[in-house]
């Protein structure tokens, strides 16, 4: 091999290695947190996490469930709040591992059906029932470890509909929901595989609508008109005033940024992942910590107009009715 070709090869090897390492270490992180609450929950929590998969199907469609939880759950004194997760269309929990482990690191047990069509919310409720059975089984790691008085839901895209539907059809078992990129109703197929207006307007609980400014085709902030709920603002406005509610859009975030690991990698554009999950980790986690773990400081961040959420650099389109 000549000296020149050896040099070219060395350069290529170096460039390849650099490309593999860059997303994790050297690139600037988009949507960095700016205030104390966002900064606190943007970071991973103190718990190491474990992931298990149900040995048998956990929902009525025959899907298994993945459960993300603190590794030392057996030795903790307190029962842990539960979050039921709903995947976007054609997705499994494998697409959201960074986000789901992040929640588990903050002391949540997260159960996620592997259903790829979660819009109705029925399989999400099945996953809740599965965890109730696990909690009652002496042979389960979750035996007497779950606090079923504090159950929340979260989901992405079609799963955002599924999470909200699960809450509204849970007879009060699920008390709060975080929706990521809740699609306009004109993206629902079939039409009832989404969050229907009567379901929302008759609902109770609390809800945090989260979208991204680069997802204007599927989950935009505003709409032109019409009677369908075709924007995050329309969903927010249709949510009863008796519910605690908030809405915000992460700047520059695309439809699938929640799937980041935490970045999108060099091929992220193939799945509409642009900035990664970074900016989503702070306030959505804070909302759940407030609603399910009683973190009042986190709750104060959403106070209408004056909370930290309203001055955070990474967010826009913010509104809430939190007093």
């Amino acid at each position, binding site marked *: *091999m000549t000296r020149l070709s050896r040099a070219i090869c060395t350069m290529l*090897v170096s460039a390849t290695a650099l490309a593999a390492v860059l997303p994790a270490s050297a690139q600037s992180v988009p949507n960095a947190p700016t205030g104390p609450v966002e900064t606190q929950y943007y970071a991973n929590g103190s718990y190491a996490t474990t992931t298990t998969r149900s040995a048998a199907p956990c929902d009525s469609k025959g899907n298994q469930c993945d459960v993300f939880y603190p590794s030392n759950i057996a030795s903790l004194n307190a029962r842990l709040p539960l979050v039921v997760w709903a995947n976007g269309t054609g997705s499994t929990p494998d697409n959201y591992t960074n986000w789901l482990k992040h929640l588990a690191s903050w002391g949540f047990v997260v159960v996620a059906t592997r259903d790829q069509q979660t819009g109705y919310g029925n399989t999400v409720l099945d996953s809740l029932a599965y965890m109730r059975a696990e909690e009652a089984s002496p042979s389960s790691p979750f035996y007497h470890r779950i606090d079923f008085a504090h159950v929340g839901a979260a989901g992405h*895209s079609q799963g955002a509909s599924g999470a909200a539907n699960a809450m509204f059809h849970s007879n009060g078992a699920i008390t709060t929901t975080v929706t990521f990129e809740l699609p306009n109703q004109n993206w629902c*197929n079939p039409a009832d595989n989404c969050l229907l207006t009567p379901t929302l307007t008759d609902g109770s609980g609390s809800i945090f609508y989260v979208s991204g400014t680069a997802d204007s085709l599927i989950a*935009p902030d505003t709409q032109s008109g019409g009677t369908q709920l075709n924007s995050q603002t329309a969903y927010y406005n249709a949510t009863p005033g008796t519910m605690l509610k908030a809405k915000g859009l992460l700047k520059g975030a695309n439809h699938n940024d929640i799937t980041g690991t935490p970045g999108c990698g060099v091929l992220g554009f193939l*799945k509409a992942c642009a900035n990664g999950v970074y900016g989503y980790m702070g306030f959505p986690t804070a909302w759940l910590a407030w609603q399910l773990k009683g973190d009042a400081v986190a709750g104060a961040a959403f106070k209408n107009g004056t909370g930290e959420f309203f001055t955070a650099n990474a967010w826009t389109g913010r509104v809430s009715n939190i007093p």
Partner: protein
Amino acid sequence: MVRTYCIVAILVVAAAIAGFFAWPRSAPVAADAGAVVVRPADAAPTPAPVPMVEPAAPAPQPRSAVETAILASMEDPRAELRDVVVRRDAPQIACGEKRTARDPVFRRFVWLGHLKMLATDDGTKDFANIAAVCREGQPVP
């Protein structure tokens, strides 16, 4: 050893370059050359005016991969598509008309294959905004 690393590195870089150029995100093609008609969905059944000889049934046209994906997303065995057009510079996007068992009128749709998302025309300006993505050169969501 070094030679092996070099070969692997060259292959990785070559694949990355090929992938970058093969992915047609905004190819500058003539403005109105942007669509490829996959097929008209419902060919009218061939009438048989003289029942003397049983005409051969027309062979069903094979569905394209994009049509198969769209229909699979709808989970409706009676769903039909017609006039499906794939955006030439963004083949993950398709537009056309669909009808379903519960909504038997053909309505326009937009399909984002990379997101497995299907929008249906609800007569609003918002759908018109979505449908703009069917035009070549528009940003891909």
